[in-house]
């Protein structure tokens, strides 16, 4: 199958007063139509910046895509003009944001905001757009859609707003949906509903999804393929089952261990010692070595490569290069 999206060696740097921050530093991944990809990592590891880069929404200045290609259906979005991007945004690639409470314009009705996108991208007139809008609201499970369309965001609860955001994002049948921590701001019961809804819609509409999260449970629930990011780099890439049964990179192993589980009765969760390095002062060699339990001499000196084996399993660690376990 053709790849829908190919990100090649993407580098997005922020030029701040204190120096250059490599928020995304050489990220590669690809996505097939209808596939769901999870991007996991700690806060500040560059997952959100990666997604914003795809839509070219990185605030410039200070941010800039300095290198790399983002091929969407063969077209390089890094080189696209602003007006080409305006056509792609919302139409081919849509995005759901983390904060449903603030992502809707408070002075307009829900319907008006959804209809705006529909009318813009699908050349429908007002009545047709309204019908389509009601249909979308029903699809995302908003009760009394005919009335809800004329309500204002403050009359919606958090879960309802996130549903409305999803309706807005999917209203133009995008080929790719980027969901940037869509459940983080919601309480747990609503989280489960939103995840269910997204899975459900994915099957119905065959939309490819990039799900950005730090919640390993959400990833397990939704994704087929996962990439783990650390300090702007991909450290591991695997299919979901392999990643959970056999995490390779010490960072991934640490993440798995620090996840609470119902089955065991530990008093304290294991933690990964230390914190994400200061992006202005990255450690030499492997960026994870100060926190890594297996750090060796070579880790302090040289950057490991992303080692690729045949099954699409990738890991960036000296452990495996030396032992030749994954080649």
């Amino acid at each position, binding site marked *: 199958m053709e790849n829908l999206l190919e990100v090649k060696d993407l580098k997005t740097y922020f030029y701040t007063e204190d120096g250059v921050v490599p928020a995304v530093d050489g990220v590669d991944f690809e996505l097939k139509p209808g596939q769901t990809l999870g991007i996991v990592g700690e806060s500040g590891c560059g997952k959100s910046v990666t997604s914003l880069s795809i839509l070219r929404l990185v605030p410039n200045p200070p941010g800039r895509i300095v290198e790399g290609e983002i091929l969407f259906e063969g077209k390089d979005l890094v080189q696209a003009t602003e007006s080409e991007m305006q056509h792609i945004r*919302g139409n081919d690639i849509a995005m759901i944001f983390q904060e449903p409470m603030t*992502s809707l314009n408070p002075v*307009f009705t829900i319907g008006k905001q959804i209809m705006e996108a529909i009318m813009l991208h699908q050349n429908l007139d007002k009545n047709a757009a309204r019908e389509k809008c009601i249909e979308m609201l029903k699809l995302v*499970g908003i009760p009394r859609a005919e009335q809800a369309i004329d309500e204002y965001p403050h009359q919606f609860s958090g879960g309802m707003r996130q549903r409305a955001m999803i309706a807005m994002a999917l209203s133009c049948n995008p080929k790719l949906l980027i969901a940037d921590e869509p459940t983080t701001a919601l309480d747990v019961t609503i989280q489960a*509903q939103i995840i269910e*809804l997204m899975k*459900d819609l994915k099957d119905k509409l065959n939309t490819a999804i990039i799900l950005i999260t730090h919640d390993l449970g959400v990833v397990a629930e939704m994704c087929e393929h996962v990439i783990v990011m650390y300090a702007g780099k991909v450290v591991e890439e695997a299919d979901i089952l392999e990643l959970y049964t056999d995490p390779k990179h010490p960072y991934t192993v640490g993440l798995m261990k620090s996840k609470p589980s119902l089955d065991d009765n530990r008093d304290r969760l294991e933690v990964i010692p230390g914190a994400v390095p200061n992006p202005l002062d990255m450690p030499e060699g492997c960026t994870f070595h100060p926190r890594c339990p297996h750090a060796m001499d070579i880790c302090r000196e040289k950057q490991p490569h992303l080692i690729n084996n045949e099954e699409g399993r990738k890991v960036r660690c000296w452990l495996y290069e030396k032992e030749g376990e994954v080649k």
Partner: protein
Amino acid sequence: MATVTSNNINSDNRARSSKVESPWKVMLKRLRRNKLAIVGLVVLIIMAVAAIFAPFLTDFGRDETNLARSNAAPDAEYRLGADSLGRDIYTRLLYGARISLTVGFVATGLRIFIGVVLGGVAGYYGKTVDNIIMRIADIVSCLPFLPMAITFVAIRGPSIYNVMLVLAILGWPGIARIVRAEILSLREREFMEAATALGISDFKKITSHLIPNTMASIIVSATTGIADAILTESTLSFLGLGVAPPTPTWGNMLTDANNQFVLQHRWWQWVPPGLVIFIAVLSLNLLGDGLRDALDPRLKQ
């Protein structure tokens, strides 16, 4: 469908308001509770109606003179007396309201238009564009108002249009600053990022997302702005630089009373226009205060 079960849970979470209340309805509801603002609004409506239907409210023509009865005190024929040319003061007050209110509204409308466009562009694009526009605004607001207005009207000739124009040209920086400041903070909000992610163009983002969000402060500043414009028109007309006689405005009616003798002995020539200006401006300010409170989100109940 997996979502069906979740619907029921969710419908309980939401506020049970069967009727949709738009922000405007909420504002009107709150405004209605403010007695003074309503008084102001009613007075203004009465004035506007009186101005529109002036010919039906008086037996005299606007410029109809009767020299035999010049400077007549109020009596059965001239309800508010007559001026030095024997024109009915009451009639001229009605017609004067047309000019004064029109100048107030049109000049403020023009001022808001310029202010919103420039403030919106400055706030949205920032950087160089912002710098250029706001420095021009600084320069304009540094200009002393009366000398500039007098020079402008002196060059272009006294007329109602020039008064409106000069009010707008010298008055826009205030509105532009308000709009810019609001947009500077609004454009960083997440719903603007969401709008960008939907592929909405800059123009649409400014006109249909940002400016409606600044409406509350624009309305408040417009209401008090109209009062200012009416006062300034009176000042200019009083100085003979506003609307040319014989067209009456509240301001140039006061000009006629511009000497000691009239002030002491013919109160009916200056008290009525002065009082009307005072009442109009007071009403506008009361309404403006009321709107400010009604549109203040912190007072949500």
